[in-house]
């Protein structure tokens, strides 16, 4: 609840966002990962690039919105690419991969169906790592102003004079 919780206020400069589209990520070089269609790319400074790519997929599987592009999930978890958190995140993602391998997948990202990945997450949802990632996403994802239009939410309205002349009672289907 405290706004200090979770990764927030991340610098857009850390991120090289090229365009908006969806697609699973892959590693394109040391410390540099990108979407398969080059829709986004991020510089990873501390985490293993594979770890970060898995974390992004985990974030989408926790709060899947098909109309929200990967770049926003990247922004939401970028704060974990941090020396203070690296050990915990590497261990958490390693556990995720091990659980996936235990179910016959080639790691978490190797599980092609969302339902298979969600099964893995359900089995670890009480863990501190899962709860940290999920809790951080509540603000890290949904408090990004750039995703609000996807939900139709209009945000700040005072500077526009409120809605008194802009449809506060314009419902027409009742």
């Amino acid at each position, binding site marked *: 609840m405290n*706004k200090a919780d979770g990764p927030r206020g991340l610098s857009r400069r850390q991120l090289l966002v090229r365009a908006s589209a969806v697609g699973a990520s892959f590693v394109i070089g040391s410390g540099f990962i990108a979407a398969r269609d080059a829709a986004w790319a991020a510089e990873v400074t501390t985490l293993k690039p594979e770890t970060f790519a898995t974390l992004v997929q985990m974030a989408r599987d926790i709060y899947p919105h098909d109309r929200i592009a990967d770049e926003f999930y990247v922004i939401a978890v970028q704060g974990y690419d941090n020396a203070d958190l690296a050990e915990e995140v590497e261990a958490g993602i390693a556990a995720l991969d091990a659980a996936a391998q235990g179910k016959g997948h080639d790691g978490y990202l190797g599980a092609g169906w969302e339902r298979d990945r969600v099964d893995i997450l359900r089995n670890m949802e009480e863990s501190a790592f899962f709860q940290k990632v999920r809790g951080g996403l509540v603000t890290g994802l949904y408090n990004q102003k750039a995703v609000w239009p996807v939900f139709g939410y209009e945000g700040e309205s005072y500077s526009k004079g409120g809605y008194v002349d802009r449809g506060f009672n314009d419902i027409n289907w009742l």
Partner: protein
Amino acid sequence: MAAPFDLNDDTVVVVIGTGAGGGVLANELAQKGVSVVALEAGGRYLPEDYVNDEWESFGQLAWVDPRTTSGDWRVSKDFSGLPAWIVKAVGGTTTHWAGASLRFQPHEWKAATTYGAVQGASLLDWPIDAEEMDPWYAKAEDKLGVTRTNGRPGLPGNNNYLVFEKGARALGYTDVHTGRMAINAEDFDERAPCQQTGFCFQGCKWGAKWSAAYTDIPRGEATGNLEVRERSHVARIEHDPDGMVTGVEYFDKDGNLQMQKARIVCVAGNSFESPRMLLNSASALFPDGLANSSGQVGRNYMRHMTGSVYAVFDKPVRMWRGTTMAGIIQDESRHDPSRGFVGGYEMETLALGIPFMAAFLDPGAWGREFTSALDQYENMAGMWLVGEDMPQETNRVTLNHDVTDQWGLPVANVHFSDHPNDIAMRNHAYKQGAAVYEAVGATRTFPTPPYPSTHNLGTNRMSENPRDGVVNKWGQTHDIANLFISDGSQFTTGAAENPTLTIVALAIRQADHIAREMSAGNL
């Protein structure tokens, strides 16, 4: 002597807290010529400072000093360090409140008599009644400019209200309207009318909603009789060997411990901080804390039976546009035990923005069941359910000596578990709330659990008999004649209604009493 006052001036009344209780009391006393020092833990924020952004505003206004929780309420699991969503600022939670201004129903002043014995509940009648409170309610309504009272018009309904109203009528509800709100429908008291901006919870940038921050506080200061000391956090209330309070020790804005002498001390820090201050003031003479000979300080914590119902429709609603709490159904507020519970509840529209909806719709939930709901945000309508909860001695605020705040003071632990009556009422309210929306074609409804509490009541309750509570009918502590409680913690029972109007009415009445007793030389 005019404000500012000297620390050694022992003729002043010290009011702790500047919200609906303390802010109003401080101004009312100042208007009567009484010298008042108001100690406010928070800073001063005015309409130009408020922000139309849920988390940013939360960071600006909310009380986030450490607290701990226990009990079986879900808030203790999902928001363990944040039992209440209240404000730390000049004006207190009157910056955040929705504005609903309802009088208690006459029978609610006499809950023990009306409901009879309820197992596990510490019900008690208030030592005052509807007739006694009628003129004070009228003064409070006129101060706040409450719509639909004393000839003032109502607010227009927004989209969220129009959905709610149509469903209510379809269900046969008749007491349905856009509320009695302390939000101007037209110019009133030098404040603008509502511009349907939304963000009522983040502080009204138009000043259309009444808040003590920009009404009572500056008016009190303008008399020269009120000094408000911001960012002043009270540590303890001091007393003399005769057991009368003599002053208040507090950390000032620079973190230095100060001692303000006082003729009278009035405590209005909301229902966690007020008992915490009394308990943290324990001494050799009062080992269980001040005004606690009954053992009732901190007990009988009430937070209202609450919950929400959100619903998705096949077409847009855009509930966030306009007044956050835009209308009410009052048909279920009656006492009718045939429903399976005593007391009643109100249904009031409510809207959250997408950031808070993500945090509060179903805390802890994840996956497509959750995200598919948020995906329909534009097509959602919402209501809040608020009803009378049962006082229980074991629901209480205590000191947690294992956790201290930034001043090294033990924090409040808030223990709460629902009474079976609360659960029965909530289940009934969830069912009726869903039915309202299904009557207008909802395709999916969500029985949303209670948020961190905004209505915190009862931890220094009013009682006829000193054995049963902490304060008498004037809010004066039974044990210490010059120590008063001036906030919602003095509530004997919670009633179904949003508490602010009653807190304001009691504060106006208390100011009248204190000034009269001072003039008579009794205080």
